C-alpha cells in the first residue's frame, strides 16, 4: 500500500506541476504580452481554464494532505523551515484565485478590471517562483535540522534555506516551465489566425527554460551543490534530461502541423521527464540538509494509516479521475462561452 500512496503523491505532484503549472503560465504569458494580445489571451484563458482551473489547484491540496498523513516527519520539516515561502505561495494562490473569479464574474465591467488583471498577472508570476524556491529550499542543502531551533539565528533557520541564489534560479526555472506549458496549450485554443502569437511565445519560453535551467546547473556545479553533483552522476537523470531536450523536435513538428493533442502530449512528457530527472537521483531522499539527506520515508506513518489512506486514494481516484477526464473532454471544444 505504501507504493499506492507514493504513486498518488508523485501523481498529484506531477498533475499539479502540469495543470497548475499551465494555469500559472497562462498568467505569465498574459503578463509578457502586448496590450492587444493581453485581451486576446485573457479571453482564451477564460475559455480554456474556466471550467477546470479550480480542479487544477486541488492537486496541491491532495499533495499536502498525503504528505501530512503518510509522511508526517518529512512534512514537519517542510512546514517549520520553509514557513515563509510557503506563506507567500499561499497569499499568491489566494490573490490569484480571487482575481481570476473577480475579473470573470464581476457583474459590472469597468475600470476595476484593470486592478483584477494586474493582480492576476503579477500573482501568476510570483507564485510559481516561490513554489520553485520551496523546492529549491528542500534541495539546496541549507536547512539545518535542530531539535531546538532557538539555537540558530532567525536567518539561519528560516531564511537561508530558501533565500539564496540557487533556490531563486530554480524558482525562475519553474516559472519559465509554467509559461512553456501554457503557451503550448494556448496554441491549440487560440482563435484561428491568432495561433502565431502563442507559437512565438512557446519558442521564447523554450529558450528561457533552457537558459534558466542551464544557469541553475552551472551555478549549482560551480558552488558544489550536492543536488547538482549527484544529478550529473546519475545516468537516469542525465538520460531523462537529454530525452526531454530531444523531444523538442517532435514537439515543433506537431505544433507546425497544428496537431494539438500530440503537441500537448510531448510538452507534458517533457515536463514529466524533467521532474523525473530532478527526483530520481535522490529518491526517496527528497530533502538535502546541510549535513545529510532526509528520506521522505523518515518518520513514515504506521502501517494501519498507510493502509487506510491507500484504500481511500484508490476509491477516491476511481470516482474523481473519470469525472475529471469527462470534464476536460466535455469542454475542450467550447469556443463561444462569454458572459451571459
Amino acid at each position, binding site marked *: 500500500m505504501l507504493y499506492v500512496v507514493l504513486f498518488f503523491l508523485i501523481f498529484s505532484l506531477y498533475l499539479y506541476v502540469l495543470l497548475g503549472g499551465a494555469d500559472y503560465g497562462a498568467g505569465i504569458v498574459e503578463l509578457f504580452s502586448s496590450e492587444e494580445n493581453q485581451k486576446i489571451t485573457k479571453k482564451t484563458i477564460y475559455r480554456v481554464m*474556466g*471550467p477546470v482551473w*479550480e*480542479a487544477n*489547484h*486541488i492537486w496541491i*491540496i491532495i499533495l*499536502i*494532505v*498525503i504528505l*501530512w*498523513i*503518510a509522511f*508526517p*516527519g518529512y*512534512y*514537519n520539516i*517542510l*512546514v*517549520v523551515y520553509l*514557513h515563509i515561502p*510557503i*506563506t507567500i505561495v*499561499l*497569499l499568491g*494562490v*489566494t*490573490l490569484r*484565485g*480571487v482575481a*481570476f*473569479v*473577480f475579473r470573470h*464574474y*464581476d*457583474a*459590472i465591467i469597468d475600470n476595476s478590471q484593470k486592478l483584477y488583471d494586474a493582480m492576476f498577472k503579477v500573482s501568476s508570476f510570483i507564485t510559481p517562483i516561490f513554489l520553485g524556491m520551496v523546492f529549491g529550499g528542500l534541495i539546496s542543502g541549507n536547512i539545518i535540522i535542530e531539535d*531546538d*531551533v532557538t539555537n540558530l539565528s*532567525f536567518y539561519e*533557520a528560516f531564511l537561508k534555506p530558501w533565500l539564496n541564489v540557487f533556490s531563486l534560479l530554480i524558482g525562475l526555472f519553474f516559472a519559465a516551465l509554467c509559461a512553456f506549458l501554457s503557451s503550448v496549450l494556448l496554441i491549440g485554443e487560440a482563435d484561428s489566425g491568432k495561433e502565431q502569437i502563442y507559437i512565438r511565445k512557446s519558442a521564447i519560453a523554450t529558450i528561457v527554460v533552457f537558459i534558466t535551467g542551464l544557469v541553475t546547473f552551472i551555478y549549482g556545479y560551480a558552488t558544489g551543490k550536492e543536488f547538482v553533483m549527484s544529478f550529473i552522476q546519475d545516468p537516469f537523470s542525465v538520460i531523462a534530461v537529454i530525452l526531454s531536450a530531444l523531444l523538442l523536435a517532435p514537439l515543433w513538428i506537431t505544433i507546425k502541423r497544428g496537431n494539438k493533442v500530440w503537441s500537448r502530449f510531448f510538452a507534458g512528457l517533457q515536463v514529466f521527464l524533467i521532474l523525473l530527472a530532478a527526483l530520481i537521483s535522490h529518491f526517496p531522499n527528497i530533502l538535502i540538509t546541510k549535513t545529510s539527506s532526509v528520506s521522505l520515508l523518515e*518518520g513514515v*506513518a*504506521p502501517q*494501519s*494509516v498507510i493502509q*487506510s*489512506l491507500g484504500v*481511500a*486514494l484508490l476509491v*477516491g481516484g476511481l*470516482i*474523481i479521475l473519470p*469525472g475529471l477526464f469527462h*470534464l476536460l473532454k*466535455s*469542454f475542450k471544444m*467550447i469556443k463561444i*462561452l462569454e458572459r*451571459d
Partner: protein
Amino acid sequence: MENLDAARLQMAFTLIFHIVFACIGMVMPFFMVVSHYKWLKTRDQIYLTLTKSWQKGVAIFFVTGAVSGTALSFELGLLWPEFMKHAGPIIGMPFSLEGAAFFVEAIALGFYLYGWGKLPERFHWFTGVIIGLSGVASGILVVAANGWMNSPTGFDYIDGEFLNIDPIKAMLNPAWFTQALHMTLAAFTATGFAVAGIHAYQVYKKRKVALHTKAFKIAITFGAVAAILQPISGDISAKDIAKRQPVKLAAMEAHYHTEKGADLYIGGIVNPDTQEVNYKIALPGMLSFLAFGDIDAEVKGLNDFPEDEIPNVPMVHYAFQIMVGIGSVLLLAGVLYFVSLKKKKWFENNKYWLLFAILAPMGFIALEAGWIVTEVGRQPWIIHKIMRTKDAVTPMPGIVFSFYTYVVVYLTLSVAVTWLMLRQIKVLNQSK
C-alpha cells in the same frame, strides 16, 4: 504579542472567514437547484434569472472558500507543526475523504457553470445537486477532524507516543455526530437567513418585488426548517459535552461551584475573580436537567477542575449566550415565516421585510459564536487531555507579522466580495 497568541489569533481569524465562505458555498447550491428546478417545471423566466444570479454567487463563494481552505490546510502545519506531526496520520482519513468530496464538488461546479445549453437539461440540473451534496459531505468530514480534537480516539497514548493508530476509529469519534449535525443545521440556518435577508431588503426597498419574493421564499424555507430543528441538535450536543468535556460545559454556563440541581444562567456578567455571575436570570435546576435530563443531577463546577485546565470562562460563556440567544430568535422568525404563508397580508407589510433584513447577519454571528464556544472552550488543549496548544505551536518566531498580513489580506477580500455582491444585486435589479 507572544507567538502562541499570534498563532491562535491567526488561526481563529482565518477560520472565522473560511467558515462564512464555506457555509455559503455549501448551502447556496441548494437554493440554486431549487430555483433551477422551478424554472424547468414552470418555465417562469424569473426563476432562470434567479438561478443564474445565484450561480454567480455560488461561484464566487466557492472560490473564496476554496482558496481560504487551501490556505488553512497549509496553516494547520505552518502554525501547529507538532500537532500535525502526531495528529496528521490519525485524523488524515476524514481529510483525504474531504479532499475527494471537494474534488467532486469542483468537477460538478465546472459542469454546472459551463453547461448551460450544452448539457442535457436534467443532467445539467443534476450536476447542481451534486455540488450541494458533495459540499455538505465536505463539511461533515472536516468536522470529524475537529470532533477528534474534542474527543481523541483511535490510538493509545503511551509515554508521549501515539501508538496502535486506527484511523477509522479516529474518524468515527464520539463527538463527530453531534458536532456535524449541529454544524450542518447551523450552516443552513445562517446561509438561509443571510440570503433571505438580502432579498428581503430588496423587497423592502421595492425593487423587483416578484423576483426577490421568490428568492426570499426559497432561502428562508431552508433557514427556517434548520432553525426549528436546531434546538434538538443543541440538546444532544449539551448532553454529550456534559459527559465528555464537563469543564467546557461548566465554562459555557460560568458554573463555578459543583452542586446538585444546578441553575441555568441566562445572560449575566461574569466576574472571574469573585466567581460570580451578576445580573443573570437563573432558572432553577435547569442546567442539571439540560445536561443530564434530571433536575437534581450534580453538575461539576469549574472549581473542581485543575486550574491549568480551565478555558477563558467569560469568553466561552458570552459566546454561548450569544449563540443560544440568536438561535432562539431565529427559531421564532422561522415559525413566523411559516405562519405568514397562511396570512398572506403580512407579505404586504413592509415591517415584515425589514425584520428579515435585520436578521440577515444573525445566523452567522451565532455560528461564529458557536465555534468560539467549541474552540476556546477546549483550551488549553489542542487535543483534549493529550496535547496542549502551547506545545503544538511553531518554533518560528514572529508569527505576529504573518497574522497582520492575513488580517490585511482577508479584510480586503471581504470588502471586495461584499462590493462584488452589491454589484451583482444591482445588475439583477436592472435586468428585464
